[in-house]
C-alpha cells in the first residue's frame, strides 16, 4: 500500500520526467552503455518510456557469476542480490532474515570478501565473483569449514549457519591462522539467536587448523 503511494508521489513530483532526464544524458553517457552489464539500464530505460515502468519496473538482463557458474537473469535495478540468488536462481542456502544489514544470515563472498547480500543491489554484482554456501562442498564431500561446524556442534536451528560459514570462509581466505580475538572480530557481523557463539568460535579455530594442515583455503 505504502509502496503504491510512494510511486504515485514520485510521478507527480518529477519535474524532470525520466525520459527528459535520460535524453539529457547525451551521447557520452550512452556511449558507455555497451561497456558493462549494469549500464544496460540506460538503453533499456530509453527504449521504454520510463513513466510506464514506474509500477512494474524495468527488467535488465544481467550476468552473474556465482560459484564459478555464469547465470543469466533479468532484474530490476532495485532487486537485492539475496533475492535474485534465492528466488530466481533457487540457491536457497543463502538465508534472508533481517533484510537490513544487521544479522549476517545473507552473507556471501563478493570477490572473496564477505558482504551482506541483502544490502547489495544485484546489478552492482555483475561481473564480480560471487560465492555462496553452495560453492563450498565438492559433491558429497564437505568443505573443512563445514566439517568443523558439524563436528563442533556449532549450530542448533541452523538458520544463521550458512552466513556464519561464509563469514568464516572470508576470514580464512585472508588469514589462515587467526587469533581468537581476530576470529571473534570477523564473526561480529553474524547473529545466532540460538546462542551457539562459543561453538561457532571453536569451529572457526578448528577449521583454520584443518585448512592449515590441508594446505590452504581453496573454498
Amino acid at each position, binding site marked *: 500500500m*505504502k*509502496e503504491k503511494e*510512494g*510511486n504515485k*508521489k*514520485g510521478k507527480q*513530483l*518529477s*519535474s*524532470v520526467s*525520466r525520459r527528459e*532526464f*535520460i535524453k*539529457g*544524458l*547525451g551521447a*557520452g*553517457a550512452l556511449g*558507455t552503455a555497451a*561497456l*558493462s552489464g*549494469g*549500464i544496460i*539500464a*540506460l538503453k533499456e*530505460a530509453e527504449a521504454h518510456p*520510463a513513466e510506464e*515502468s*514506474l*509500477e512494474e519496473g*524495468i527488467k*535488465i538482463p544481467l550476468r552473474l557469476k556465482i560459484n564459478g557458474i555464469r547465470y543469466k537473469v533479468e532484474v*530490476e*535495478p*532495485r532487486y*537485492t542480490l539475496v533475492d535474485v540468488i534465492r528466488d530466481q536462481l533457487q540457491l536457497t542456502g543463502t538465508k534472508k532474515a533481517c*533484510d*537490513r*544489514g*544487521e544479522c*549476517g544470515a545473507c*552473507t556471501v563472498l*563478493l570477490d572473496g*570478501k*564477505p*558482504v*551482506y547480500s541483502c*544490502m*547489495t*543491489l544485484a*546489478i*552492482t554484482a555483475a561481473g564480480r565473483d560471487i560465492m555462496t554456501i553452495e560453492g563450498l562442498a565438492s559433491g558429497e564431500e564437505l568443505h573443512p569449514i563445514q566439517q568443523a561446524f558439524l563436528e563442533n556442534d556449532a549450530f542448533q536451528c541452523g538458520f544463521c549457519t550458512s552466513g556464519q560459514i561464509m*563469514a568464516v570462509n*572470508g*576470514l580464512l581466505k585472508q588469514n589462515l591462522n587467526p587469533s581468537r580475538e581476530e576470529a571473534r*572480530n*570477523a564473526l*561480529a*557481523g*553474524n547473529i545466532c539467536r540460538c546462542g551457539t557463539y562459543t561453538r561457532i568460535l571453536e569451529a572457526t579455530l578448528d577449521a583454520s587448523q584443518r585448512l592449515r594442515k590441508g594446505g590452504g583455503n581453496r573454498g
Partner: protein
Amino acid sequence: MLTFSYYAPTSLNQACRLLSEAQGQARLLAGGTDLLIQMKRNLVKPQFLIDLKKIKRLKGIEYDPEKGLRIRALVTHSELLHNPWILGYYPILAQAAQTIGSVQIRNKGTVGGNLCHAVPSADLAPPLLVLNARAVVRGLKGKKFIPLEEFFCAPNQTILKDGEILQEIEVPRMPERSKAIYLKHGIRRAMEIAIVGVAVLMALKPDRRTCAEVRIALGAVAPTPIRVVEAENSLQGKIIAPEEIEKAASIAAAHAQPITDLRGSAEYRQEIVRVLTARAITHAARII
C-alpha cells in the same frame, strides 16, 4: 524498495551532470550500507540512483611525504584497515575504521559515504577533524577545497550543493612528536553506533612534557561532529599534568550539546565526553 532508474557513470564529470540534471531527485550510491536501508524503509525515495563505483578517480589511497595523504571517496573502511601508509602514519584512521559495523559493512561502506551521510556519530569524522583534513569537492564548475570543519551543516546535511560530489579527502602530515587517538563509547564492540566518540591529537614540544598543539573533536554529542577549540586552548602550551587534562576534559564536556535518545541521555553523554577526553589526552601524551 521502490523503483528507481539506475545509472553507473564512468567519469566524475558525467556523475556531476547526472546529479545536477536530476534536480534533487537523485541519490549517489557508494557502499550502500546506509542508503539502501533508508530506501528499503521508504525513508528516502530517489527517482534516480547514481552508482559511483565505476568511476576510477574515486578509488584508492595515495601518500606523498610532503603533501600527506589522499583518500578517495570510494575507499572502504576495510581498505583503511589494511593500508600500510595509514597503519604507518595515520593509525588513528585504521583504529576508527575498525570500530565501524562489522567486517561485512567495512567491506562495502566507504569513507565518502560515512562523511556525506553526515550523521553526528560518523566514526571517521572526529579523527579526520583532528587531522585537519579537507574535502575536495567536484562540481560542474570545477574543484573546491573545503576544510572538514565546514563540511557538516546539520544532521544528514553537508555543505554539498546539487551537482557536487565529494571526490577525496586530503590529510596533511601529522605534526612532529604527535600522536592521535580515537575512543568510541558504545554498549557493544561491533555493529554499534557511537554514543560518544572522542578524537585527540597531541603534539609535544621537544621537552616531551609540554603541549605544543592539541586538537580535540567530538562525535555524537552535537548536531554535527565538532572541534572543541576552547578545550584545546586551555591545554595549549601547558605542561601536561592531571589537573590540566581534567580541566580541558571538563571544558570539552561543557561544550558538547548532546541530545537524549535511546542510546543515552544528554547528561550521560556529557559525562562520557569528560571521561573519554581525559583518557584520550592521557593516552596521546603518554605514548609519544
